[in-house]
């Protein structure tokens, strides 16, 4: 039986599934329910400095996009940090941690970008005996207009500075949460690393407008006719988040820096993928907000079953296993040749592969053969692009079949070479290096 127990920067939890700092972790009531449901840990919703709490809008906080049958694919949020009193939160945190000593309880923080503010709040959190802190440098709406959240996360120098203050003023592990609203995610990660962070977590939400009401011409979510960009999350953001996790995991400057993976994780498979790319654990929010806390049971059981099936005993057998396979385009093997192949027994003859290829790609799939409706790949035209696979509604009906070395590529008329060769040595590359023999 696979062991799902997790040790992330010294913070132990029975499984790697944490709830991210967000509406589901705003108070003891929710967090207790989450722990009862089986969540391994939570990051308590972001606390601000002492004083009158922030206020939220009194209209819609969320917008969404949907797939078929209103399956929620992307959620957007304009809620701010906790709007409850600091001391109420701290008391509840202390009590919950006492009630659930085996679960991870990390506290998310966001205070003004001055050292005194951080110095003031850190001891208060320490006193709760929480397991660690997460610095919210990601929140893209509202708080960023006040010089906090993403406004800090977008300036690597600020990131490094605040991390340094925190490390200097607390014994608790520090996790730095990064905003994706930046052109190169490695920069703030390197800065956090330089400041001495114990880990980074990412991604926070992405600036977004989920829709426009075409009757009132107001963006969604709409407050009295107006809207603002909110933070986008949910299944739709997963590919963006995974790339950012991988970029940090494979960056030599931050290699080995623990990463808490966040962004659209909905199933055990999503979690496994994030961990394979280098995440030490994962944080979840939208899936819980969509289906309730019980989803964690599927995640635990699914991850366990997959690890058992594959013979992975602990999470460390999985974490980072895909990282070495993430590379730059220039290093991809140009001698790898694959052709699409349509399984005629599985084909239902919808013709989507044909029209996608015909209209938008390489005219490599038939529609009629001997007068009959028949979809088949013409190898002499197929560049192996995979579009047909992606538009085919039948799983495994179209597969990409690599050509073995020595076989003829009918499109190029060349025999597939048995050696690896990439763009850096390609004759068409004006700055090609001489191939190493």
């Amino acid at each position, binding site marked *: 039986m696979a062991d799902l127990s997790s040790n992330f920067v010294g913070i132990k939890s029975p499984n790697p599934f944490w709830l991210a700092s967000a509406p589901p972790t705003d108070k003891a009531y929710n967090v207790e329910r989450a722990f009862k449901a089986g969540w391994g840990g939570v990051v308590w919703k972001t606390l601000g400095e002492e004083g009158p709490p922030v206020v939220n809008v009194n209209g819609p906080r969320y917008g969404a996009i949907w797939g*078929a*049958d*209103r399956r929620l694919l992307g959620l957007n949020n304009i809620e701010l940090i906790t709007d409850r009193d600091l001391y109420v939160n701290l008391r509840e945190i202390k009590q919950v941690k006492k009630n659930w000593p085996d679960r991870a309880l990390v506290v998310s923080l966001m205070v003004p970008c001055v050292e005194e503010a951080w110095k003031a709040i850190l001891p208060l959190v320490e006193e709760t005996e929480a397991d660690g802190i997460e610095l919210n440098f990601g929140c893209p709406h509202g708080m960023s207009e006040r010089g906090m959240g993403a406004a800090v996360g977008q300036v690597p120098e600020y990131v490094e500075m605040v991390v340094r203050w925190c490390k200097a003023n607390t014994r608790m592990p520090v996790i730095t949460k990064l905003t994706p609203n930046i052109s190169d995610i490695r920069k703030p990660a390197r800065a956090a690393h330089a400041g001495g962070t114990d880990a980074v977590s990412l991604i926070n939400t992405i600036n977004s407008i989920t829709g426009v009401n075409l009757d009132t011409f107001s963006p969604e979510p709409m407050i009295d006719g107006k809207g603002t960009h909110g933070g986008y999350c949910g299944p739709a953001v997963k590919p963006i988040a995974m790339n950012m996790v991988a970029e940090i995991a494979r960056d030599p400057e931050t290699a080995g820096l623990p990463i808490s993976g966040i962004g659209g994780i909905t199933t055990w498979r999503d979690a496994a993928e994030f961990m394979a790319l280098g995440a030490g654990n994962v944080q979840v929010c939208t899936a819980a907000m969509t289906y309730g806390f019980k989803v964690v049971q599927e995640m635990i059981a699914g991850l366990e079953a997959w690890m058992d099936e594959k013979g992975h005993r602990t999470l460390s057998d999985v974490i980072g296993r895909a990282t070495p396979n993430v590379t730059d385009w220039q290093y991809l093997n140009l001698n790898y040749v694959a052709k699409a192949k349509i399984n005629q027994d599985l084909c*239902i*003859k*919808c*013709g*989507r592969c*044909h*029209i996608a290829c015909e209209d938008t790609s390489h005219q490599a799939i038939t*529609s009629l053969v001997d007068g009959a*409706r028949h979809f088949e790949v013409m190898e002499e035209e197929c560049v192996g692009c995979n579009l047909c696979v992606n538009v085919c*509604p*039948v799983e495994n009906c179209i597969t990409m079949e690599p050509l073995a070395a020595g076989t003829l590529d009918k499109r190029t008329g060349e025999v597939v070479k048995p050696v690896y060769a990439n763009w850096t040595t390609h004759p068409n590359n004006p700055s090609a290096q001489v191939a190493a023999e």
Partner: protein
Amino acid sequence: MAAGLFKEGIAPGRLPTTQYADNFSDLHPPLDRHEAVVEADRCYFCYDAPCMQACPTSIDIPLFIRQIATGNPLGSAKTILEQNILGGMCARVCPTETLCEEVCVREVAEGKPVQIGRLQRYATDVAMAQDKQFFPRAAPTGKKIAVVGAGPAGLACAHRLAVKGHDVTIYEAKPKAGGLNEYGIAAYKSVDGFAQAEVDYILAVGGITIQNGKAMGRDFTLAELTASHDAVFLGMGLAGVNALGGEGEEAQGVRDAVDFIAELRQASDLSSLPIGRRVVVLGGGMTAIDAAVQAKLLGAEEVTICYRRGKESMNASTYEQDLAAANGVTIRHWMQPKRIVGVNGVTVGIELEYTAVDGGRLVGTGETLTLAADQVFKAIGQSFDAAPLNGSGPSVVLEKGRIKVDEEGRTSMSKVWAGGDCVVDAREDLTVAAVAAGRDAAESIHRTLTANGRA
């Protein structure tokens, strides 16, 4: 004296009065907006879609379904009605299981096609509820065209001609327009007076006048029509009903299924409609099924369809056969009527002879069976009544007992086109095929008139 279900003979009111409305409610209730969107999302938007090829009116099905999925039901209705102005009725009565839905790739893949018929109904219902007209009339051409028969073929032809700017007069023998849509289909397939609502929707284009109660051969002749109009379209359907040719056919209790179906459709109070305790329906097509199922729904205790060949030869689709079975109708194969058993001229049973195929021909085996029956419905086919065409100058050439037309619907007489069930056509006798024929004949008439008659 037994009452209700078990009343002997042919009697009305076999069911509690409240049950009729349930029994004859919509066979396929309409999809609501969300259901329609979810169902529409199942469509793969196939290239050169098989469903579209299978539709006799060539509706762009993937496009209209995508328009539903994207929240544009009116655009969807326009896509449908462009090809088939009776798209609302076809959505209800088309045997989609043997047309578009049979070839749907999801039928092939998982035995669960996209519910094209119900989606088509959804879109056309939205348009008709708003009385949204999509096809404004062209400038008047001054051409006058006569259409004989206000059934699906005639209505489709008239509408297309009206859109082109011609003036159309429809001559209809029956008191109401609609043809088989009004008189010839099971009540649960078209509830709430839909057939008349659709006629009104079609007529709203303008330029079409219907003269009811006008039958060709009785009230006017074809020669008179051709003399007074620029073109004539014949769409009078099949007025004749095939006879059994067996002994005792004139006994009380023996009836044409089409008359029963028409009477039921027109009845304002179904509980007043008499039905036998034991009913036998002869035939294997849609008419046989419609009669048998409705007999059962009226409270007949025992309803048996007897068909002279095997299941595979039945014209009724598998879906229709299953519908009959689900309603408690027994379908028996390989037996043909031999004799109506009557007592004092009243039907009490029917003697049938078993059949077999021998050397490619259907023959009686000599073995017989007698079923008790108070009522026997004949649904063994309808025939074209050519008599009204004759005696009015040159008559129209027939073929296989129906009007012969070319691929555009032209008959042997100039100025005369025909379509629908009254013509010899490779297409089955379906509403949707009649619509296609009427529409295409209208295009042919328009081409002819504008080429010849442009001043």
